[in-house]
């Protein structure tokens, strides 16, 4: 392994940029992601920076059952994120549709039909610590040796 790759591995595990997109959730998961920002959980002390610009992001948090408006737009958003990238489904909605997956629904779950999902955090809504745990355990292993693997 080259020395450059080693430096990149180390840096990538300490600086993860996260963006989130709400594709039709009930707001419960949104505010649990927001709660991660609170000084109690303090997402930034692990080197995770939350902002809403997909062009700078490494990790995309997807919340909510997919509504028809988002079926094509989510793919566009995913394409804007530079490589290496990963998507995490937060909550039951992107996994199965949760309570909304019934007869007469408008939504079209699961989210895996539209973008590749690397990890899923079940719960309605999951606790902030679980979301934090998912990002922290997924991102360093997924981004490790990215350039070496590309070769």
């Amino acid at each position, binding site marked *: 392994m080259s020395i450059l790759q080693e430096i990149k591995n180390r840096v990538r595990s300490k600086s993860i940029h996260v963006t*989130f*997109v*709400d*594709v*039709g*959730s*009930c*707001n*419960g*998961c*949104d*505010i*649990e992601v*927001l*709660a991660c*920002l*609170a*000084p*109690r959980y303090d997402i930034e002390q692990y080197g995770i920076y939350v*902002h*809403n*610009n*997909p062009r700078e992001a490494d990790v995309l948090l997807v919340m*909510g*059952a997919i*509504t*028809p*408006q*988002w079926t094509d*737009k989510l793919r566009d*958003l995913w394409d804007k994120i530079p490589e290496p990238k990963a998507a995490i489904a937060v909550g039951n909605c992107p996994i199965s549709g*949760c*309570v*909304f997956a*019934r*007869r*007469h*629904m*408008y*939504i079209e779950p699961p989210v895996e039909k539209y973008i590749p999902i690397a990890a899923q955090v079940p719960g*309605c*809504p999951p*606790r902030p610590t679980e979301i934090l745990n998912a990002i922290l355990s997924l991102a360093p292993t997924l981004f490790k040796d990215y350039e070496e693997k590309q070769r």
Partner: protein
Amino acid sequence: MKKTVDVSIPIGPVHPCWKEPIRIKCETAGERVRRAEVELGYMKKGIERIMRGRPWQEVMFLAERVCGICSVIHNMVFIEAMEAISGITVPPRAAYLRVIVNELDRIASHLIANFSYCYTIEHETLAMYLLNVREVVLDNLERITGSRINTAYMIPGGVRFDLSEEDAAALLADLATVEAEMRRYVKMFETGPLIGLRSRGIGILTQEAAIEAHAVGPTARASGIPECDQRLRHPTYRELGFAPVSRTEGDNFARVMVRFDEVFQSIGLIRACIDRLPDGPVRGGGDCGPGEIVYRGEAPRGELAYCIRSDEYGRILDISIRTPSIMNIEACSHYMVRDVTSLADVTSTFISADPCIACTER
């Protein structure tokens, strides 16, 4: 013909300032906003269509997931509407416990609304302070109901769990810390000169405009309409001697301050509830029957109305929900952001009305 509109600027649907997808189209002349239009439809899940024909046991959990921020009030209004249809009476202890949980949820909701506002005007320190206080409130909500967000605490004829002596004592102790911290933060907000420049006199909604636009909740109360508070018509709140807070300025500052004042008011209401908490059972039971009703309650964002028709087995034949945010979003787009002097104030004005897109579109 004189040209009045230079360019139409879209804000959203994915925007750093709001957490939910919504698009505002601003028609601007220079930096001044002439007209704004809100485009909805990114979050429509069709909850009311799913609810139809289902038993109340299922609709209860669906109603809670209309909105994740104010889930307790959706639960409360649906359950109280079903009780009013079927003639179920609630034990007095359960009625007081409902008010305690509802007010805790209101504090959490108001804190996250003011967090969003402070975050939008880039006062991140105050925003993080408020978010940290909210965690203490959610801890108490979890201790009483067992869950942080979707609590499902109320059922026809009472509540699920009793409040033990230790939990009540812990709640009172936490409320004391919340109140002490909040006094400091409210002073920070009131006296901050830069906050004043970004908030005072911006996005004014006059009393006439608020009545015309049918504004509800803290938005209307900041414009001098205290009567719009539905808690005035709730029997338990009336016993507690509830009196709504209101302001007359109608700008962004007033809307945020009304929410801060309501946090203190909610703390007072919870203390009064614990003082008066009578002994007795918390679950009475009862069967849900047929009937039709329009039931209103005061959500953190304003008046929430459920129109329900059920059959003799307690199945929901027809339901329609009117959530508060839709009125405030329209008031915002037609009155508040019109003639705002800078495009930078559009986002903060919109956030100050505390829009909840999830419950607007359901």
